[in-house]
């Protein structure tokens, strides 16, 4: 048995097989031919032969290879292949068959019928039937197969963008970008699949083994796109685009191409992040054994293991797994426990205490009056303290025994540093208070609230001394 890895050539064969079966319609029934007894052997030999001939062609150029030599190469790779099987396969591959097809006609909007014969043979036997070579159709097939191992080919695809830019083929760039984007999207989905499915270890292991190369490749893809972005911004590209746009009547601007490339760059970044995530998970996966729910068995078991509490437990379970419904059409914050009902605040605004303000103006507002009366009561005590030297504001607040009326707090003193002239005594005096700001802050607690304020230095200046 194989190890679960399907060669790209087989994938492509499988991809076209159902199309080929449409060549043999059998009335209303869908025709699915069963594989013959030696189908697997012959397919294996055919792919082997194509591969060997392709390699030989690359080494020696186009030309015939003798079947004896070919058989020698085949035996090196698979020693149990019989010569008669090889001959049968070569004969079969060298025969032409008819492939019917049809394409829609643009003018009449009906199908145009056609058939092809010469494209169907993929090896060419010499007249002697002792020599063989591959045809152009086979080369095309092998080229597609090589592209199919495409985890490592984003980079070369991305290079197409730069080639298109170099050759002023601006019209092709959106298509190339979308093709790469689609390819990356498929890969991302494949990674998601491997991440979510803990049992597909084999496929995962192949990617893990290729990890450094894929990572490097994604990195280079990003770099290529970035350099394409740089090229787009060059003056010469802009000129070439304008010329081309005038000639080709393009339906887009250079800015659109830039956006396409930027999105492609983002996509490549998402895929490389996803790949790293995959590698991370693949390394941890070894100890996880997935539990698999058999839903129909569960349903059976419920019936035959029923007891008095079963229905109640089942209801509880169903309430948990079913998405909940919202019976009300309006969402109001009061529906969520622990949040504030904004309507309550609107309805009872008088509960809010008026904010305290330290703006001292000449107006006779209650706040200013309150502040002035506080200063009046404490002026002497303040002057006494400052006699001994300058003092930081915070120390003033915490250590001075202010005379407090009923609704006063020490915080009323905060306003003083914005209007020190309020402290000047009403009688003519040689002293006045000066405030300096050394850019310090202090914090204190008062009645459960935290006060953060700047901490100016307050000092007494004696004039005329």
């Amino acid at each position, binding site marked *: 048995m194989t190890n679960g890895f399907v060669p790209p050539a087989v994938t492509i064969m499988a991809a076209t097989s159902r199309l080929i079966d449409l060549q043999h319609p059998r009335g209303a029934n869908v025709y699915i031919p069963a594989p013959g007894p030696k189908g697997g052997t012959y397919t294996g030999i055919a792919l082997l032969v194509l591969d060997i001939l392709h390699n030989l062609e690359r080494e020696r150029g186009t030309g015939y290879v003798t079947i004896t030599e070919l058989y020698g190469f085949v035996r090196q790779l698979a020693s149990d292949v019989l010569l008669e099987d090889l001959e049968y396969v070569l004969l079969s591959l060298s025969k032409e068959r008819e492939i019917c097809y049809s394409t829609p006609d643009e003018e009449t909007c009906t199908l145009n019928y056609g058939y092809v014969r010469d494209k169907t043979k993929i090896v060419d036997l010499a007249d002697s039937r002792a020599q063989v070579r591959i045809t152009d159709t086979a080369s095309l097939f092998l080229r597609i197969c090589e592209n199919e191992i495409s985890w490592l080919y984003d980079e070369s695809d991305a290079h197409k963008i730069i080639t298109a830019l170099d050759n002023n083929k601006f019209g092709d760039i959106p298509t190339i970008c979308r093709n790469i984007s689609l390819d990356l999207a498929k890969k991302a989905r494949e990674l998601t*699949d491997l991440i979510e499915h803990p*049992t597909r270890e084999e496929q995962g292991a192949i990617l893990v083994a290729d990890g450094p190369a894929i990572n490097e490749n994604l990195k280079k893809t990003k770099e290529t796109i970035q350099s394409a972005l740089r090229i787009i911004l060059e003056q010469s590209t802009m000129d070439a685009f304008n010329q081309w746009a005038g000639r080709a009547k393009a339906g887009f601007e250079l800015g659109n191409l830039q956006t396409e490339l*930027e999105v492609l760059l983002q996509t490549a970044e998402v895929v490389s992040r996803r790949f790293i995530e995959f590698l991370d998970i693949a390394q941890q996966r070894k100890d996880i054994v997935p539990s698999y729910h058999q839903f129909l068995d569960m349903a059976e078991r419920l019936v035959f293991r029923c007891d008095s509490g079963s229905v109640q437990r089942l209801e509880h379970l169903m309430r*948990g797994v*079913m998405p909940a*419904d919202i*019976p009300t059409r309006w969402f109001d914050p009061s529906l969520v426990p622990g949040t504030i009902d904004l309507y309550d605040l609107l309805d009872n605004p008088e509960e809010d205490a008026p904010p305290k303000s330290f703006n001292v103006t000449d107006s006779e507002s209650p706040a200013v009056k309150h502040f002035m009366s506080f200063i009046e009561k404490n002026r002497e005590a303040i002057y006494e303290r400052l006699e001994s030297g300058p003092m930081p504001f915070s120390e003033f607040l915490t250590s001075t025994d202010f005379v407090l009326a009923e609704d006063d707090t020490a915080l009323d003193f905060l306003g003083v540093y914005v209007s020190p002239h309020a402290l000047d005594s009403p009688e003519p005096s040689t002293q006045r208070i000066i405030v300096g700001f050394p850019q310090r802050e202090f914090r204190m607690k008062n009645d459960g609230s935290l006060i953060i304020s700047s901490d100016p230095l307050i000092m007494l200046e004696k004039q005329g001394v």
Partner: protein
Amino acid sequence: MIPYEQGLTHAALLQYRVITDNPQGRHLKKREAEAARLLSRASEGERLDFDNFLAAQGLAVKTYDGINFGIMPNPKCCNQIHVLHRCRGERLALFFDQGWFIEAMKDQRFKGGKAEIVIWFARLWLTLQYFFYNKIARHPQQISHYDKALVFTEHFTEVVKKGIEDMGNTGRPEGEVGAMWDVLWDDNVKIDTWISKFMRVMLKAGVIEETGVKDEYRQSLSAAVDMALNSDYDLTYLMPPDDLKDMDNRSYMLITGAPMPVRAQETEGRDASDQ
């Protein structure tokens, strides 16, 4: 996110459960794109605030890059999919009605009790999950295959009927154990009516979506995300106890939500593959 934007996103998530600005196979819903973009472009701090706001209601939102589901990015869009789901460990806010489906399964002709509805509902729900997972050999953690999980009502009915028939042929368990058997194996039961009501409720709950083919439905993305969580937490209750002596331990794990030890899972995995 200013409060208006939070409110808009919250409303869109509550109403649609899945929001994206690049939907596949359907049109954008009203203000869906706006809400999806707000969520995609929110800063980390804003997203954290929003997550906390949702967690207070027992909800959470998962964000997927569309490309990880094989969706080709659209240059004009953020290309992310946001799915609202239950936040495990947080109580669902009181304004949600979790038992709504029981009322929804009733119609004017229905004379039975709540127990009957629960038994039928659970059976049909498990059969539906069989179509979404076992039938296409998919694991509940494989969220990305949600669009391949299809159920055709005719086949669904066949499976339910066959299950009930097999159950009837096995015979009624003795005594109290047969209570559920009695409900399901009743001559007057109209299975088709139960199924059509069930499908309607599932459609309303957003567990299934219409595919455009009559009577064929697809699992919704939000249902797939929910199921990935449910299979880890809730469904363990329905799994067979492999060793009755271990019952206390299992119950304890179910309550605390601790993962099952690897050894127990291995046994279960083997059981599953034997079946």
